[in-house]
């Protein structure tokens, strides 16, 4: 058997042992412990208080706008990082390019501000 296969065999043996041990202990536990289900026991634990409403609660729609704008402006940063790491090499040329890029981004931000999207009403 080659070295390659032997090292995989070790992995298989250990993986099998891990599965076996875990299932043995869990199985033993479920055999030994008493099991008396009541509806109260399956309620979600919320700091000891009775849970309110559905777990699929919807968050406020206004979070969406902020989350969206965060994601958009955050992701645009991927174009700024490469420039920032080599700032001095790109010199004035890079600065002007980046100024144009950020101007267009800022246009979007100004738009959101002017249309009152940044305000929490």
């Amino acid at each position: 058997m080659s070295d390659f296969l032997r090292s995989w065999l070790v992995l298989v043996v250990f993986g099998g042992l891990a599965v076996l041990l875990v299932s043995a202990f869990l199985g033993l536990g479920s055999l030994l412990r008493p099991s008396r289900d009541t509806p109260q026991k399956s309620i979600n634990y919320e700091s000891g208080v009775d849970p309110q409403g559905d777990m699929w609660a919807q968050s406020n729609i206004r979070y969406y706008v902020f989350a969206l704008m965060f994601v958009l402006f955050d992701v645009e940063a991927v174009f700024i990082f490469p420039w920032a790491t080599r700032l001095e090499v790109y010199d004035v040329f890079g600065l002007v390019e980046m100024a144009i890029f950020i101007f267009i981004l800022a246009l979007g931000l100004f738009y959101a501000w002017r249309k009152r999207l940044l305000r929490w009403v």
Partner: protein
Amino acid sequence: MLLNQFLLLSAVLFSIGVYGVLARRNGVLVLMSIELILNAVNINLVAFGAFRATVGGEVFALFIIAVAAAEVGVGLAMVLLMYRNRRSIDLTAIDQLRG
């Protein structure tokens, strides 16, 4: 150099994504499936880029990430609009147009 493993991972992700788009009926889940496909593409590009020792793949992946963010922004807005107007994001429920 590892390449096949990445390509396999990406092919699996791509297939899961395509399955999700075709089988899911919830607007948001379809969007997430499309994101899976895009991530499969990114894995492919970065793996090929490292394998070929050219940066083209990484640069392409960065562009895909940025554009995908804009795309998802539009998509979520669209799903939201649908929810506002008809209180559901079930894609089977949209059937005003057919012929």
